[in-house]
Each structure stands twice: as structure tokens, then as C-alpha cells.
């Protein structure tokens, strides 16, 4: 149990939140911490859940490959449609739009996404960062986070950075809507998805108040103080109920290390 890495701890924590018959969607993100948070931890968490308490869970790898045989995959692919995946065993492939799983009717029960900014009610920005001088930094665009937050049963936001530039009072551009007005506010939107449920960061894990829709600290990672989380967050953060991020059980860790992550990416980092 010693030497549990943060990424292992997060994979186990996320796995515990997954349900027996969840249908999970993760896109493919590339490059160091983004790939770790955006893709590798979610995939590891889903696979761990499949091997323990959730054998019926369906994993949509990169959003199109159903239940790939991760053992045959070697390293994570570097692009969303890697040609080598022609050869990877899996149960199904989505090759048309809307195709064999329809995100619009909430076939997906849990999604994972990342963003450049997230605000106190969980709205996210992937489009642009405004500078005080009126100029802006152009990002990639809305991609599919809009659909994640509107249609998926629930969304787990994987934030590879946690600081005052990424956790802001109000995002510069609302690519996807969180919980303005709490549950009542979302009910008015009349979308089937329930929006962001958890926000996972290198400092802790956060969730949202049902009534106010405001983000709050639920777990703080080992070696991180509640004060530090507050300092690195650009809005007033309710930390009253924060607990230490729980340890994996010996069984969880054994399955994780032996069957899910034998390459040890969760300890050593994903190769660039």
C-alpha cells in the first residue's frame, strides 16, 4: 500500500463512483498531464471498475471504440483515430454519425472531459482566454464538451491544472453549462444530462451543491492543505466538508497494478 501514486489514487477513487452498468465516454487527449487526466486515468478507472464491481460497464474509448481489449493496445494511441486500431480487438466501432450509440438520447451515462477554465458553477471554457488588454488567446474550440454536459448522464471533469487561471469566478466563454441556479436551473434547460458531477484535479476532488450549484471541496489529496486548494482557486471555495482523499484497498491496488496498468503509467507517467 505504500507508494500509492496520486494518479493511482485518482483512478481508484473515480472507479468507485462508476455504476454496474455505466456507459462511459472519454475522448482522446494528448500530451503529458492532459493525456493523464483526460484519457489515461478515466480509461484506467473504467477498466478497474469493469474488473471489480461493474462487469457490465461499457467503455467508449476515444468515443468510438467499444470495450477495446486494453491488454492488446500496448501504449495509449496518440490520435483519436489511430490506424493501428483496425487490429485491436473490441466489441463494436462507431463509424457513422449518429451511429450505433446516440449521445443525444443519453446512451452515455458518464462522460469525461477537460477544459482550459472552469468556474464556480462548473461551466467550462475551451474556446478563448481573454487578456486584460483586450487581446485573447485562441484555443481549439468547443469540441464536444457542450454535448457532454447537456446529454450525458453525468460528467466528470478532469482538470490537469488547478490554479487561479483555470478555476475562475466566471469563464471567459461558456462552451458548456454547469449548474447556474443549481438543480432548479438545470431543470429549466430541459436537457437530459445532469451536468458536471465531479471535478478531479492534482490538488483534490470537488463536487457541487444541489441548491446553489456552487463547487465545493470534497477531498483533498495527501500532502495538499485545504489552504493551498483555497489559494489556488479563483473563487470563494466551501471547504467545510473536505475529507482526505481515501486510500485504495489492497485488492483495488492489486487489480489496478496487475491487470489495468501493468506498464505502470499511473506511477511513472504516460510517455510523451
Amino acid at each position, binding site marked *: 500500500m505504500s507508494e500509492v501514486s496520486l494518479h493511482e489514487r485518482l483512478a481508484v477513487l473515480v472507479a468507485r463512483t462508476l455504476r454496474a452498468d455505466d456507459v462511459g465516454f472519454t475522448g482522446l487527449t494528448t500530451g503529458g498531464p492532459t493525456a493523464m487526466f483526460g484519457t489515461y486515468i478515466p480509461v484506467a478507472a473504467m477498466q478497474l471498475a469493469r474488473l471489480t464491481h461493474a*462487469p457490465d460497464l461499457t467503455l467508449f474509448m476515444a468515443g468510438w471504440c467499444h470495450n477495446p481489449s486494453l491488454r492488446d493496445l500496448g501504449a495509449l494511441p496518440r490520435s483519436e483515430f489511430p490506424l493501428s486500431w483496425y487490429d485491436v480487438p473490441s*466489441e*463494436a466501432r462507431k463509424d457513422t454519425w449518429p451511429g*450505433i*450509440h446516440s449521445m443525444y*438520447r443519453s*446512451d452515455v451515462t458518464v462522460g469525461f472531459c477537460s477544459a482550459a477554465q472552469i468556474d464556480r458553477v462548473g461551466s467550462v471554457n475551451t474556446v478563448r482566454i481573454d487578456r486584460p488588454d483586450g487581446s485573447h488567446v485562441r484555443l481549439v474550440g468547443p469540441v464536444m464538451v457542450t454535448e457532454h454536459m447537456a446529454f450525458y448522464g453525468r460528467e466528470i471533469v478532469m482538470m490537469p491544472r488547478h490554479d487561479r487561471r483555470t478555476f475562475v469566478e466566471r469563464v471567459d466563454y461558456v462552451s458548456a453549462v454547469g449548474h447556474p441556479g443549481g438543480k432548479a436551473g438545470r431543470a429549466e434547460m430541459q436537457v437530459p444530462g445532469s451536468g458536471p458531477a465531479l471535478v478531479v484535479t492534482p490538488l483534490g476532488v470537488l463536487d457541487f451543491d444541489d441548491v446553489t450549484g456552487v463547487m465545493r471541496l470534497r477531498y483533498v489529496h495527501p500532502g495538499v492543505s485545504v489552504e493551498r486548494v483555497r489559494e489556488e482557486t479563483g473563487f470563494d471555495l466551501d471547504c467545510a466538508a473536505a475529507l482526505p482523499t481515501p486510500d485504495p484497498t489492497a485488492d483495488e491496488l492489486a487489480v489496478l497494478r496487475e491487470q489495468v496498468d501493468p506498464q505502470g503509467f499511473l506511477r511513472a507517467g504516460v510517455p510523451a
Partner: protein
Amino acid sequence: MATAARTGRPSRTVKLVALEDLAARVPDGCRIAFGGFPMFGKPMAAVRELVRRGSRELVVVGTSNGIEVDVLVAAGAVRRIETAYVGLEEFGLAPNYRRAAEAGAVEVVDYSEGVAFDRFRAGQEGLTFVPVAQLVGTDIAARNPEIVPFPCPLTGRPYHAVPAANVEVAVIHAPAADEFGNILYPQSRMLPQGLDLTMACAADVVLVTVERVVDSNFVLRNPQLTQIPAFRTTLVAHAPWGAHPTALPGFYEVDDEFMRDTYLPAATGADSFDGFLDDHVRGATHEAYLETVGAARLFHRERWAVIA
């Protein structure tokens, strides 16, 4: 969900069940869609099982319906049908259906074929309505209070808002499946099979009968064949010749002999058809039905199997 003895962990749910257990997932009064084309790929084994169960008050939603509706209407299982066609293709009008429709014993709501397809697409996409341009001036719109005219919010072009299919249950017959509910089709499909997939994506409960059950390792090696992934399938049942007397690509053609010598003569009257149901369907199993209609003869009609 079963539990693997060795590890103590739960094991994956097996969705393969007996035909009667599959049919038991169809509640009386539900909105239900049947795959296939009038005489092509109809889930007839499941339909006959619904007759055995004595299903009642079904609302059949479809695009091109055929012999499955003719049988279910004759059995008194259908309250209402919303579709673009009910007939038997080369075998003419559907006699049982026609009698019931003309007598007012079944409510018929007419849609054009394109709109009927699009209602399922709307269902697949969680839309409450589908905007269509082609109903202007038709009685399809004029006689249906559920269809509402509205202008394009951007251009003012006249549209009608048509309700999505809103089906609770879809029942289809497919070539093959594994025990977990991955449903396999040959890569070269025919159009009605493409429509079956949309239907399956639009329903809450997806019930599939199949000609063959394959090992899940076959699926892993041939993921491009899976057209309905396991998570969308509610239950699957093994029913060889399950589309009889309709055709199934890669397996068998329409059973002309049965249609001309047995079905059509029986369907000329309500009493004679009730006799047919008594003799061949009610109180029998799928296997017994195949015997009474001549399974041995059928066997020689098989041409080739796309999925081994």
C-alpha cells in the same frame, strides 16, 4: 448479475434468454416497433410468441409493416398502428389487417414513408419532434391532430412538427449475437436492415431474436460486424428461421409455398385465420411451429450464411 465463484466478483450479465422470456418484456398497451420490411426480415418468432402470450392493446409504430401486423391484428393484439404501409408486397393487401381497419377494429394513423423513418431518427436523437417540409397540403397532416404546422425560425419556410416515434420497445430479427447482446450483421446489409438499426437506437427496450449465437471472442475479432452494441440490447433469444415466412439475407428467401398454400387461404376470413393460429401458433413452441410448416423443407431453402 451472476457472481464468478473463483474471485467473488460479479460477472457480466448474460442477456441470452428463452424466446418466451424475451416476449415477456413486452407490456400490454406499449408503443412497439417491429424491424424488417413487409415480407423481409420480420421478427416473426417473437411475434408468434406475443400471440401465445395473448398480448393486448399494442400501439405499433412503423415505416413499412407487413405480415407481423396482419398476424397481430388477427390475434386481437393491436389497438392502433402508425405507419406508411401495411401490406404483403407481392402477396397483395394484408387481409386480416384490412378487415380490421375497414371495420374500425384497429385505429390507423397514416404517415408518409420518409416521415415515418424520420420519427425514428428523432427518437434516436432524443428530439421531441422532427421538422418536415413534405406534408404541406396533404391529408396526412390535415387529419392528424398530433402534427402541427410552424414556420422555420430562421427563414419562415413552412414546416410541420411531427412527434418522434416514442417507442418503448423495438423487436428485431438479426443474423447473429453473442450472449452479452452484441448484435452482428454482415457488412453488406440491405436497406431494411439499416432501418432496423435506427429503430433499435430509438427504443428504450431492445429485444432481438437471432439465427445464430456466436462466441464473444468472435465478436472481439470482428468488431466491425457489431451494429447493435451490447449496452443497447435488453434481451436476445436464439430463434433459427425466426423470420419465417419472410426472407432473411444470407439465410433464406420468402416461403412462397407457405404463403400461397397456407397463409393466404387461412387469412380469407377471421374464423379460418383463428383456426390457423390454433393449429400452428397457440399452444405450440417456435420449434413445433417449424415442424408444422415443414422445417425439413425449409432447411433446403437455405442458400448461404454470411456469418458462420
